[in-house]
């Protein structure tokens, strides 16, 4: 079975080819990291996979299914959840409510049932709440349960976004720069959590990251992009030692 495959993915914005003929595969259970200088097309690639952008050419295969033409909400329904580089939380709501929104794909009640608050709705609410609490237990977010996101510091928000993505119940988790804006301690904690999510919850992780120490700590394989093109693919050490990668970063 193909777990996740990107084949010849290309996207053009006018005359700019932001992602150019990129192909790679992710094995189930690994942590796969995409690195590259600013403007390399990493986030664009992410947006293509989560279907916020539509590719100009190429294919995305997830668990033997072609998901290239699905809508963003269908992608989440397939079990691909993501976080955002610049935190897209629901700011006027509490942490708990944010996590409960993550449970959306598990809710089967229709609007009229919600209006009448039938027994099914009440039972599902309890199930959602339990699942959200379990995620909060893993990421130690209990103390922020009822705090409005707008009142929380950046570092905590970053973790809550991961928690919300986990509430989707993903098989593939996309993390867009999980350590950006975090201090050293928070980055260390984030690395531990990524490993915990990967090893204990058995979620495959695809992430974009700049912090090379974090990358080498958690990643099984690394892909380096530059100007939308693939430069190198291999273990963290291999990619870091690759002459093209060194040239791209140091401008040799």
């Amino acid at each position, binding site marked *: 079975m193909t777990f996740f495959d990107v084949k010849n993915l290309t996207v053009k914005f006018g005359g700019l080819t932001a992602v150019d003929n990129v192909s790679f595969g992710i094995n189930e259970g690994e942590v796969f990291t995409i690195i590259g200088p600013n403007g390399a097309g990493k986030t664009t690639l992410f947006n293509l996979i989560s279907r*916020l952008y539509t590719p100009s050419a190429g294919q995305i295969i997830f668990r033997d299914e072609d998901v290239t033409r699905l809508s*963003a909400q269908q992608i989440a329904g397939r079990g691909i959840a*993501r976080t955002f580089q610049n935190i897209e939380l629901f700011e*006027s709501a509490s942490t708990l409510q944010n996590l409960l929104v993550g449970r*959306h794909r598990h809710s089967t009640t229709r*609007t009229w049932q919600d209006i009448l608050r039938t027994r099914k*709705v009440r039972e599902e*609410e309890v199930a959602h709440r339990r699942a959200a609490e379990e995620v909060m237990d893993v990421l130690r977010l209990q103390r922020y349960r009822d705090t409005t996101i707008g009142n929380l510091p950046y570092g905590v928000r970053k973790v809550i976004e991961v928690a919300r993505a986990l509430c989707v119940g993903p098989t593939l988790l996309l993390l867009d720069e999980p350590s950006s804006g975090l201090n050293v301690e928070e980055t260390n904690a984030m690395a531990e959590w990524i490993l915990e999510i990967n090893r204990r919850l058995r979620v495959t992780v695809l992430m974009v990251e700049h912090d090379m120490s974090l990358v080498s700590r958690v990643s099984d394989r690394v892909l380096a992009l530059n100007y939308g093109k693939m430069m190198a693919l291999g273990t963290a050490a291999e990619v870091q030692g690759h002459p093209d990668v060194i040239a791209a970063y140091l401008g040799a």
Partner: protein
Amino acid sequence: MAHHVRTDYGDSDPLFPSKAAVFWYAVLIAGLIAAPYLLESYYLSQLVFIMIYAIVGVALNILSGQAGQVSIGHAAFLAIGAYFTAVAQKYGLPLVLYLPLAGVFTGIAGYLVGLPALRLHGIYLAIATLAFAFIVEEIIARWESVTNGNEGLMLPPPSLFGLKLGTEGFYYLCLLVTVLVVLAAINIIRSSTGRSFMALRDSETAARSMGIDTARYKTTAFALSAGITGIAGALYAHKMSFISPEMFSLSVSIDFVMIIIIGGLVSLRGAVFGAIFMIMADPLLIILKDQLPLWADMVTHGLYLPDSVNQAVQAGVSRVVNAPGLKSLIFGIIIIVFIIYEPLGLDGRWQRVKAYFKQFPLARQRSARPPRMFLKSERR
């Protein structure tokens, strides 16, 4: 400060936050049930208007407060509900049937209006709903075979199960409908649907990435909001017993928006507060209009000013209080004051007063500073 300890996920979002709340809501309902025996007919009539406006307020709260979609065309939905009622009653449908049907019918209209909303945001959506309101007003004025055009339609008094509803009977009907609508709205807000609305409002991108079908929930929000307004329209038609196109003009839509701005966008309680304010502001202004010249007279006499000054002051005061458009001016000033100093509306003020007494004597001004709020449209 009191904390509520909960031991079960089942009651994590209860209807009433505490036993005290149960008690006070019971007192409120008891008072409202006793109202026909306690109040003069004028105030009872005002109470019915407050309830109708509160229903519209709840409808707009779901659309604007929860789902973050603007509408300045809700008078059109009120009109559709009202005219549906008038026509249905003419064809002999019973009230138990046409009242919910008015909601369903208007809900379908709301769904159709929601379709362009999928592509429009903020101010553009506001203009689209405004245009819709004008179109509906125009259709009602022109479609004379059904609506009797500008001459309007008379409605016979409503009857329930063959019994004519008198003033009191109609009051109880309105009370029942209001309570049911509020309960329905509470249930929506604390459900998966309500959370999806909230997600739409705060970040559409994130909502989609969480698997929320944004198109479906936007149209649902419009349909629900319109449906509830349609039910209010049915009650409104019966309350007025005569409807004509100019009763559903732009200024009515603006009144509705003011309900939720003054009351507070974030909570249903705000919708009720806003409705009370909008309905009671009129009689208060009239009283003020009568009293102001007398007060001015007292002041000038108290200061022993010469007669000529006295007369000049009197003339000035009466010119101001009788000036056309004074009411709009005052309302405009009130809205500006609310947006600047109390963006959370009357409900926000109420919450702060409650917090003050809860924390007494530890409450400090700064602990209740209102959060800065920015219009969502500014971010796009």
